[in-house]
């Protein structure tokens, strides 16, 4: 019985963690890649932006759903937070590119 509880807890851990992560930092779809490239943002830049969003921003707070804010609002938020969290310019640009691309596809 203990093994069943342990397995269920492990699955809950995996599902719960993944669900909240996917909402705040969705996977990069082919449509997003195409849209990003049209704006001059490479696939690698989008991947970097997603990784930085998931690892650097969450050291202080949970990720907000990308759909919660407009592209313009995200621009202001990232600019403010970059200063507070010490992001380098290229890191800030990568996060901006990722959020802009994701938001446009929602």
């Amino acid at each position, binding site marked *: 019985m203990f093994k069943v509880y342990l397995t269920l807890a492990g699955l809950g851990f995996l599902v*719960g963690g993944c669900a*909240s992560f996917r909402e705040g930092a969705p996977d990069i779809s082919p449509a997003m890649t195409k849209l990003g490239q049209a704006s001059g943002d490479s696939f690698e830049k989008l991947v970097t932006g997603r*990784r930085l969003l998931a690892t650097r921003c969450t*050291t202080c707070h949970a990720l907000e759903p990308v759909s919660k804010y407009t592209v313009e609002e995200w621009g202001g938020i990232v600019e403010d937070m970059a200063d*507070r969290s*010490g992001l380098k310019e290229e890191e800030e640009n990568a996060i901006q590119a990722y959020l802009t691309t994701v938001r446009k596809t929602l």
Partner: protein
Amino acid sequence: MKLQKTTCTILLGISLLGEVASAGDRRFTYVYETTTAAKGEIEVENFATWKTRGEGSGRSNEFDFRHELEYGVTDRLQAGIYVADWKVVDGQAIYKDTAFELIYNMTNPVTDLLGSALYGEVKLGDQLFKLEGKLLLQKNFGPIVLAYNAGIEAEWEGDRFGDFNERSGEFMESFGVSYQFSPYFLLGGEFLHELGFDEWQEAGDPVIYAGPNASFRFDRFYVTTTAMMQVTAVTDEADFQWRAIFGMHF
């Protein structure tokens, strides 16, 4: 008096360092998180801890302070120095020790199944030498963060450094849960379990603390605080302890 002047100088230096600091806001005060400072990033944290024990006129209080400077060596390796651990006794500031720590992040609590890190600390004082190692685990579920630490420490003490005649060990584990109500306010709890081994022989009485935790984030600074009650009945350990960490962003 000289010591007080030295302490003031250290505090002033640390305050000035805060002007270039960019600290990650801590959710807990006793439990360490697995995330580390990014490469090249400097973080400054100031700790204040109040411990009290005893009853009536026999009640004693201790006020401990710590000033920590952390540096991201790589995106995964963080080095830290406790510039000064000091305490206030009868209105006098007394220097206790200085420590060095390394935290190596192995997995991320958001992108991996479980966040993990290794923690190592070396502490040097006038009368002590201490080594500490911990395993840090963490998982973020959106606004909910769970963290667990387990570690062991070895301490040598004597009348002066190098002339150690006492040795002891301690196993410790701690657990924390935090819920983010908004990016500016988080509420949770912490749990601490310590088990000492005098002369590395018999285990002493286990000491367990538990209590609520809150973190307030503002534009330029944050405060995280925990109040812990002893839930066991070990009389030579604090009945109650309160800790606050002040971090600044400029």
